[in-house]
């Protein structure tokens, strides 16, 4: 069946596309892009005033499935993704059990195929049970479709072990994604060390606890030659390390979350908002400004959400006892549109690069381009839609967003995966398979 | 606060007050057959000043310095829960009241609630042989079974009025005035020095 998307503004920096045109889709692929297209029969949608981009990809989400389905599961997580305009996500392996063998990879893939509303790319753990001691079944997982590996959550503490992981991984076309956290420095850290930790009377999480591991992993990248992706970077000096590595020609990439760009340690007030308790912690305003600059100048490759759902009752408690993390899939695009694109910091092309193009490259996925022959994974954006982030609007099971109450402009209205709508006019489409 | 607008009448001037205090001092001495075993305890913030005047007068008449104390009843008020935490002044009774005849002194006797609180406060401080009550003005409207033993002047008043004592020592002028209660204002004494602050 054919689908015609007419009159939208198409943005694809990969092919230099930035104009109003029509897209004709058949059998899950784009068959033609041009002006005044016609078709014999099929569904036609007039998307005048909207923007179409290659489908957005979030390469860092936690769907808690298997094991903690009260927080989120693959059905609710992928629905949240579709609602946020994402056509694909990469799930982190810190589930229960951990995704550290092929069986676990197949479980996530099977659930995603059965109930998913977006493509689910499974990342495997680097070490067995995320303990940082023994190599996981990386090769077997790779053969079963896990393209990338990470010990997201704590990172690998022992440098020798990290070297072994990277040495071993480089036989595959993969990337080791690194959660940079030196536990001996971070300890029981709750918030950024400095003003926030002093003001709030809690154990600080020094920036150096992150930067030290970024420096270490870059050194190991140099030593092993294994591609390295720094996850959720948060500090100016960490960014400088990545910039230097890139200048040196090392295969290093990095990602940033909206919350580290748009929130700071100063937002955590005497109210001790547990929604703002994240790992790594919210940093200083200076760091946040540096991250935005890094996104603008390309040192940062990708925007990710680190979507980390938790139940209300887990978050509604003492700050030091509440779990780390906030959701992000359903606010990420709108935050970027509001604070960066509309604000004139970056253009749509840069946004597409950071939210669609680079994530596919890092995940070793086929590119999606707005041209004939490409897979029809598309995100339709209403750039003028004004809305307020409210708890009741989430498709995620969780409400632990740090942006409740934020007034945003611009959001995804339609999401297409393989030519099928997973969201239409702002509503996630039920039934059908993608 | 009193300002010229809502003063309805001046029912005692400085001379009237002086005469009333003198008469009350005589009455207290007569009723107690002298100054022996008497102690004066004034209720802050006007009663204590009156008590001091009475003590001076008694000394003039009898040549005896009677023990003089002041009592703050903030912690004993019955309207703490419904109104506010009143500013606390200090209680200072530098002698034992055990076995003494304590003459409680206040400026204006009205509902009787202040005296009730003062009696409770006194009982927590010691065990007087007897307690007597001296007030400069009795304006009626009692809500409790309390009466004064020594009264400077009976001043019939309406509950929409305030009867207030001002003393030269703290207010710059001595007088008892009848005033209209303004909306939102409570009946009672005015803060020290309000006359000067006008």
């Amino acid at each position, binding site marked *: 069946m054919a689908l015609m998307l007419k009159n939208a503004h198409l943005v694809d920096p990969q092919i230099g596309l930035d104009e109003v045109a029509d897209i004709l889709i058949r059998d899950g692929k784009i068959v033609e892009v041009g002006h005044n297209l016609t078709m014999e029969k099929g569904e036609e949608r007039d998307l005048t005033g909207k923007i179409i981009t290659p489908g957005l990809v979030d390469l860092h989400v936690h769907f808690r499935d298997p094991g903690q389905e009260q927080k989120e599961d693959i059905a609710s997580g992928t629905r949240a993704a579709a609602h946020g305009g994402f056509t694909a996500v990469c799930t982190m392996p810190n589930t229960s059990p951990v995704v550290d063998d092929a069986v676990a990879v197949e479980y996530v893939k099977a659930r995603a195929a059965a109930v998913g509303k977006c493509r689910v790319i499974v990342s495997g753990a680097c070490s067995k049970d995320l303990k940082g001691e023994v190599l996981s079944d990386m090769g077997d997982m790779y053969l079963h479709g896990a393209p990338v590996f990470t010990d997201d959550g704590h990172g690998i503490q022992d440098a020798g072990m990290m070297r072994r992981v990277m040495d071993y991984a480089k036989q595959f076309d993969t990337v080791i994604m690194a959660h940079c956290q030196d536990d001996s420095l971070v300890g029981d850290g709750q918030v950024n*060390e*400095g*003003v926030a*930790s*002093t*003001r*709030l*009377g*809690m*154990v*600080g999480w*020094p920036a150096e606890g992150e930067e030290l591991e970024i420096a270490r992993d870059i050194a190991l990248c140099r030593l092993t030659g294994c591609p390295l992706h720094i996850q959720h970077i948060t500090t100016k000096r960490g960014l400088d390390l990545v910039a230097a590595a890139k200048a040196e020609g090392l295969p290093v990439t990095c990602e940033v979350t909206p919350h580290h760009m748009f929130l700071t340690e100063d937002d955590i007030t*005497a*109210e*001790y908002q547990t929604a703002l308790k994240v790992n790594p912690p919210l940093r200083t305003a200076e760091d946040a400004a540096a991250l935005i600059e890094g996104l603008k100048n390309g040192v940062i490759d990708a925007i990710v959400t680190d979507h980390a759902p938790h139940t209300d*009752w887990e978050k*509604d*408690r*003492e*700050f*030091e*006892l509440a779990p780390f993390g906030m959701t992000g899939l359903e606010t990420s695009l709108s935050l970027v549109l509001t604070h960066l694109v509309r604000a004139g910091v970056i253009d749509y092309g840069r946004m597409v690069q950071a939210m669609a193009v680079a994530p596919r490259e890092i995940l070793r996925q086929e590119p999606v381009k707005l041209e004939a022959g490409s897979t029809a994974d598309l995100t339709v954006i209403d750039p003028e839609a004004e809305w307020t982030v409210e708890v009741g609007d989430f498709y995620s099971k969780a409400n632990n967003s740090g942006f409740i109450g934020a007034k945003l402009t611009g959001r995804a209205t339609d999401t297409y995966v393989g030519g099928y709508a997973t969201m239409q006019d702002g509503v996630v489409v039920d039934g059908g398979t993608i | 606060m009193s300002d010229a607008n809502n003063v309805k009448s001046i029912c005692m001037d400085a001379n009237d007050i002086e005469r009333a205090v003198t008469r009350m001092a005589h009455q207290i001495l007569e009723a107690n057959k002298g100054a022996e075993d008497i102690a004066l305890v004034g209720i802050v*913030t006007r009663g204590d000043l009156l008590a001091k005047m009475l003590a001076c007068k008694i000394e003039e008449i009898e040549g005896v310095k009677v023990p003089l104390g002041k009592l*703050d009843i*903030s*912690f*004993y*008020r019955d309207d*703490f*829960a419904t*109104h*506010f*935490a*009143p*500013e*606390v*002044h*200090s*209680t*200072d009774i530098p002698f034992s009241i055990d076995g003494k005849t304590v003459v409680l002194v206040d400026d204006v006797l009205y509902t009787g609630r*202040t005296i009730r609180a003062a009696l*409770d*406060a006194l009982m*927590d*401080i*010691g065990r007087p042989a007897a307690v007597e009550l001296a007030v400069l003005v009795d304006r009626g409207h009692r809500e409790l079974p309390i009466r004064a033993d020594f009264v400077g002047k009976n001043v019939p008043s309406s509950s929409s009025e305030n009867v207030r004592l001002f003393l030269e020592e703290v207010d710059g002028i001595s007088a008892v005035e009848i005033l209209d209660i303004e909306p939102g*204002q*409570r*009946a*009672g*004494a005015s*803060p020290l020095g309000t006359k000067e602050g006008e």
Partner: protein
Amino acid sequence: MAFDHKHLIDITEYSADDIMTILETAKTFKQVNERRIKKVPTLKGFTVVNMFNEPSTRTRSSFEIAEKRLSADSLNFGGSSTATVKGESLVDTVKTLCSYKIDCIVVRDRWAGVPRKIADVSGVSVIDAGDGKHQHPTQALLDLYSIWEEKGDLNGLHVGVVGDISHSRVCGSLIPALKIMGCEVTVIAPPTLLPARPDILGADHVTSNLDEALPELDVVYMLRIQRERFEGAPYPNLREYNLLYGLTQERDRLMKPDATICHPGPINRGVELDSFMADHPKRSIILDQVYAGVLVRMAALYLLLGGSNDGIDA
């Protein structure tokens, strides 16, 4: 006097006038505490819950005495039998307590920010009796009271705070409170026991040299060293701590003749203070601080539960 606070949670929300109101009110309670019947009926009918989710003997007993002397009904809740231990959330515990129709919660908790959370959930007056490593405002107030009584005026005093600043909730309230009252504050500690940003608390000077700082100080506030902690200890041993940071008899000659010694208790004799200094008849006001605890807690309860004064003193 316009005291319109409902909670005593964050000392930085209090002005110098607010603090003076508390101190002056505390002073009036001396008269009550020094007579035979040490009780007034002011809070008759009020129910105060002492929710101590962490062991505490001194602070809890001080609050309990203050409540009883004001005639409040007090309920001690917590300790090892806390509902939290049984898996109930803090929020549910507080809601349960509120169903008893209470008027005030005095809370001590291991975790920072809990008093504010309780205030939000309960709607009743909340007094922070120490939350995590964050604040302990009544301790700061009793310290201010003791220093005020001793020195006559707080403004312009140079106060040195010595010891474990980083793990001290006392400092979280005391240092800002001293600044509010116009004191100059020097923080003296091994670098391993300093918070990341002592200046955020209000410290004017930070040093690790006690001997250099001592001659300048009007008040020397010695903090308790947590001798329980040894793994990853921030100093090699108690002997060395005493050598560098202990207020020993030898250091007496470095102090101003009229310098005062404070300590929040309980004292580790021979560690942060030796007996000569702890019991120094001219300098030590450590026992006055304990008494002041009852006075300022009575004052705080009186002012917080009484609501605002409408300006008429009847």
